[in-house]
């Protein structure tokens, strides 16, 4: 979970407003990946992160998430295997640095960064439960929302359990190194995890029944979301923007294939 508690401008927005804005950015960056547009969006998003007070948390996540991806992208597309008929910029033996290869890698990397940061900004400033309540208000089934939130809570628990099983099997003399040794040890690690989870199912199912989750009738929620007319209008505008971008792209493809 990457949510960072706070009270900046982004934290105060309705989850759906942020999600709609992120969607518009993702769609626009995917449909029109032009360098000036991507750079502009990148600058805007970073300014927004600074203003919202999440920049210090955003940067390390970005580095760990995007650095290997982008390094691999530049190495493969830009240096090792450039597109056919590419213009050579620098040649070093069999390795050629080409303009087209770098441009292609740069474009994809820019798009990844813009869409990634838009999503990360939304998630950093929205509590997952608020996100689910927000999605529920536009039609996400309650059971799906429940599953999402419970899974989220269970992940650290399950990862800890996996670690405990790993140590327990190691103490019994199981080789759990890396590579092939780890592969051979997997059944002994995965088995207890699955069996343990399945034996939890009955208790959890009874708890769900006992709390009346499946019984019909109106339900109330502990969490309420702040919303206002301006944000509702902005959301409508963002959604219309998404439609407009898609229509424009299709129209351009038709006119100039």
């Amino acid at each position: 979970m990457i949510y960072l508690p706070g009270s900046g401008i982004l934290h105060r927005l309705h989850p759906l407003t942020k999600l709609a804005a992120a969607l518009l950015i993702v769609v626009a960056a995917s449909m029109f990946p032009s360098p000036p547009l991507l750079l502009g969006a990148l600058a805007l998003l970073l300014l927004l992160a600074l203003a919202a007070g999440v920049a210090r948390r955003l940067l390390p996540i970005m580095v760990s998430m995007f650095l290997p991806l982008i390094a691999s992208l530049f190495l493969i597309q830009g240096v090792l295997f450039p597109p056919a008929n590419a213009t050579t910029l620098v040649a070093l033996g069999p390795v050629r640095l080409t303009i087209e290869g770098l441009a292609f890698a740069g474009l994809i990397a820019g798009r990844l960064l813009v869409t990634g940061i838009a999503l990360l900004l939304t998630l950093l400033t929205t509590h997952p439960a608020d996100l689910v309540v927000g999605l529920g208000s536009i039609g996400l089934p309650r059971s799906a929302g429940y599953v999402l939130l419970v899974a989220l809570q269970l992940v650290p628990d399950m990862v800890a359990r996996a670690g405990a099983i790993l140590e327990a099997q190691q103490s019994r003399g199981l080789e759990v190194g890396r590579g092939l040794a780890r592969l051979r040890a997997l059944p002994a690690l995965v088995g207890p995890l699955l069996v343990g989870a399945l034996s939890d199912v009955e208790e959890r199912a009874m708890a769900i029944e006992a709390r009346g989750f499946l019984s019909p009738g109106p339900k109330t929620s502990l969490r309420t979301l702040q919303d206002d007319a301006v944000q509702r209008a902005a959301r409508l505008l963002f959604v219309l923007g998404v439609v407009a971008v898609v229509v424009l792209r299709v129209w351009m493809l038709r006119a100039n294939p």
Partner: protein
Amino acid sequence: MDTTRPRSMNSIALALIPLAMAINIAIGTLATGTPIYLDSVGTVLVGALLGPWYGLLTGILSNVVWTLVFGNQIAIWFTPVAAAIGFIAGVAGRSHLFYRASPKWLSALVGAAFLFALTLFVLMFIARTFDNQGNAVFPTMQTLFAENGLIFVLALVAGAVAGYAVLQQAGYIGTIGLATGVLAALISAPISAYLFGGVTGAGTDLLVAAFQASGASIIQSVFAQGVVSDPFDKLTSFMLVWLAIQSLPRRLLARFPYGRSQPPREAAYTEAASSRP
């Protein structure tokens, strides 16, 4: 007594699906350091016990959580792949394939046939030439066999031995796992090639690069990489669930819609249990 309610999500499914989604992530972390991702064991488990639609749902929700909570923006684009895996596992579960023990010779046959097909695919891919219009021309089977006879014989033998020793009595579910891998490669290749330039930041990127070096386009290289690595990943996921289900007490399995209809054959039960380290 039938405790499952068709058409509405019942409490067993509501309890199992989040656990399975957490298992996907936990086992994914256990598998770091191995050459496979192993991010769909939980999805396969739900399919095996609750059927295709719950399997599909688990696959979709897993990738949604991966993106919406952990900020992994790659995962959401591969939702169709996860959904397909869950669905196929569910069809296999509904057919009781997770309980049925296959004869060992069948496992050897499946192993041999798969490794043979994989070798054929890779050699075809590498040995193809281009005519003057740039269309790929594939070599004929005869020349391929004549030039690489030894490799094919080795692949057949290695596949048979691996099938016999590793798959053992999981021949049916192993076949499904391998087929799922090929399907996953088919679905994910266009996604990976168009959105990410064929790169996912994982070790398999090197394989993509190697295929590109032979003159293939990005999408062809990504597909070839997927066909080489995905079947082994999905095979492992299916096998792990198979092993776990073989060793589960019947009392536990009886709670799930597809966990009780077909009692495991006694031979398969003891064999699988004793082969666990």
